[in-house]
Structures are given as C-alpha cells and as structure tokens.
C-alpha cells in the first residue's frame, strides 16, 4: 500500500473492506495495549513450553537457547504466569 492507511479516500478503500494481503495483523502491534507484561526468571524456568502453549495470542516466542520471552503481540493477560509449572513468570507493570 503506497499511501498510509489512515489517509485513504473512499475511492481507494478496498471493496467490502477485504484485506487482500495475508498476515497484515503482524503490522499491528497489539502489545501496545498492555498494562502488564510477563517476566521470566530463567533460574527457575525448565523450558517446558507451557507458557508458549497456553498463550491465546501467540504473544510468546521461543528464544534460540530454548527459553521463552514475550513478543510485540503480548497483551499482558497473565495466563502464562498463572499456568507456569514452576511459577517462574511474574507480571510486571508497564513503565510509562
């Protein structure tokens, strides 16, 4: 899209509001909304991946060394912290 989406005219918006390009949600960093975010204590993490499995928003990514961390799409719901087997995840307020 050559023009910023918020400057499109009625003639330029796609018929039916269809998004013709797949994966556009990636460009919208839903993590901007969160008020809390998870922090992993790697000393207690056993790399089981339960946090990654239960995350409803694919907001957790696996790191190259097998540990986990949030990504730009984590909304801070805290399910990972609740379900973590060893209790290694704590929810920390966003800094302004």
């Amino acid at each position, binding site marked *: 899209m050559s023009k910023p*989406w*918020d400057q*499109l005219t009625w003639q*330029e*918006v796609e*018929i039916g509001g*269809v998004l013709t390009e*797949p994966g556009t949600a990636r460009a919208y960093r839903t993590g901007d909304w969160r008020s809390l975010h998870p922090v992993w204590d790697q000393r207690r993490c056993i790399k089981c991946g339960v946090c990654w499995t239960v995350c409803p928003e694919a907001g957790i990514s696996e790191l190259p060394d097998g540990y986990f961390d949030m990504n730009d799409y984590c909304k801070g719901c805290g399910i990972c912290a609740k379900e973590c087997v060893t209790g290694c995840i704590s929810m920390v307020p966003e800094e302004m």
Partner: protein
Amino acid sequence: MAVKASRVGMEVSIAVSIAVQLARAEAIAAYPITPQTHIVEHLSSLVANGELDAEFITVESEHSAMSCSVGSAAAGARTYTATSSQGLALMHEILFIASAMRLPIVMTVANRALSGPLSIWNDHGDIMAERDIGWIQYFVENGQEAFDHSIMAFKVAEDHRVLLPTIVNLDGFILSHVVEAQEILDQETVDRFLPPLVPYHRLDPDKPVTMGAFAMPELYTEFKLAHEMALTRSFEVIEAVWQEWGDLTGRRYRPVERYRTDGARVLLLIMGSLGEVAEVAVDELRAEGLPVGLLKLRLWRPFPFAALREAMAGADLLIVCDRAVSLGGAAPPVLAEVRSALFPLATRPQVLGYLVGLGGRDVQPGAFKDVVRHAQSESQKGPSQEFYWAGARG
C-alpha cells in the same frame, strides 16, 4: 433473438422459486416462515429431486440463514434466501454485514406485518424496519414482475460495478399465494442473460484474504461513503439490466412506473401489489372526470430522486399511500422520503400521506377513491394533520 417462453398459470411463490432455479442458484440457506414458506419449500424439493444443483442448507433460524448466506456468498457461490416479517427482523444485524462486505446475495421478502399484535398478513412494516441496511430494494406488483425481478436481481447484484445484496419485496399472501398467468422463460434464454457468477473477492485457500475485518475510526467513514456511492451508482446498472430484459422479453421496467399520468393534477403513489387495485380506482375516478393518475415506486433503494421529480411534474396534489407506520415520527417511511425528495424544488405539489392496508386489512378500489376525495378536500381547506390513518375507526 428468439425467446422461448411458456405462459402458464402458477402460484407466484412457485414462479419465484422457478426463477431462482433458472438463475442456477448454488447455495440456498433458509428457514420457513409464513408467507414465504412455499418459495423455499419448492426450492428444497427442486434440490432434493436433482432438478437444481445447489446446496440447500436447513438452518435453525433466520439469523443463521443470513449468516450462512454471507458465508456461501463469500465463498463465491450464487446465493439465495427468502424470509418474511419476524424472520427478517431476526436477520437484522447480519443484513448490514452482508452489504458492507459487498456480497451479492439475492433475497425475496414476502412482506408481512411485524408483531405485535401478532399478524401473519401483509403490510410493509417488516422491510421498512430494514430500510437502511444498504441493500438494493425493489417492490413488485404481480407474479410476472416477481419472476422477472428474481432473475434480474442476480445480474445487477453480481455486476462488479455494483456488488450489493438485493431484496425483491413482494406482498405476502395477496401476491405470494395467488395463482397468475406468467411467462416462464426457458433455461437457455436465462443462461444467455445471466452468465455464471464471477466473484470479485472470494475465500480461497490458494489466495488468502481477510473478510469482515474491523475498521479504525480513521477509515469507517470512508467505507460507509464507498458503500453509499456503490448503492447510488447501482442505479445505472439497474436501468441497463432492465433495458436488456426489456429487449429480451418486451417487458420494460422503470424506477417509478406511471399509470394514466398524462394531464393528471392529482397523483396517487404506492408500492407493491396494491398498485393494480389503485389502477382500478384511477380508471373509475377518470371516468367521473377527475384528472387522477398513479405512480408506482418500483425502486426503493437506491431511491430514484430524479425519476420521481420528473414523474410528478405537473401535479398539484401528490397522495402517498404508506403500508408501514413510523410511530412518533414526522411521517410514515415513503411519505417522509417523498417529502424530502421534493422539498428542495422551487415548485412542488402539495404532498399528503395516508396509511393504508396495515396488517392485511383489505384495500379495495373504493378505499383509494375515498383517499383521493378526502385528500382533495383537505388540500382545499388546508391539511389538518401531517398524515392520515385511512379507514381507522374512532
């Protein structure tokens, strides 16, 4: 071009279902409701008997019927459904979504009063509650028009300059259940007129798209304006398709039909099957020497502003007959629309409104004659009301 057609007597509902069969509908999701039932029952039989190659999806409600129709149209299937009254009301939220997604679904609404009190009989209360859904909306007067419009509706809706769902309104019972002589076209002719649907966008795993996404405040207005422009501009395609149909069948349609309007100083205006009753009233009043004519509004959305202004030229008094109420409002829906359409004009006729035929109350030619005489009298002495409840006791 030779047109093969047979003239047969049949119930209008059956003729509509045959039109949908001839249009080669590919997906039909419907829930039976009086007085639409015969249409979808017959389509169900046609599918079950192998006479129509379509998915007939039985659903548990009209909300699901319209949701299903959105899905099948999004998948690129020529989609048809039909409903009435409470069923249409139950579809309400999905009707806006179907049109905003620009899916060319065709639906017959066998018009019926809304509850309450519970009424299965005919008026236009059901469709007037759905006035602003952004669909193309026609009204038909007789069985032949119902058959013709049920085929033409697909061609207009699917045109890539239009891409809008469409409702063909036909009066419940007093039109849907009558047996009339109708010219039924053959399959070859309909195939020539109506080519297979070419979807503009469709759900396709090989070319994924997102449908029904949200719009941020920065875009919602532009989407609504694009929808409005598509609906108003569909007028040209509607007229072109009517022209083509006229060349094919000899039956020509106009957005505002006229009956004996030459020299008319008083004009009645109505939508739907009561037009033929009003014709009788006009004939009788003309015989009495009264210069009365009749306008029949065929196209409700997009509203034919220019055609209406042209059609009423020369009249001193325009009498709008509504078949739905707008409780607590300025005027019933058609009257409100017509007044708005004429208001900017430097010279315009006096416009008076009458509510007729609510909840299936029989309207005979005499009722229209009474309305005309009452309107003339009110016009002379200055109207006492914004609009009148014709024939209401008390």
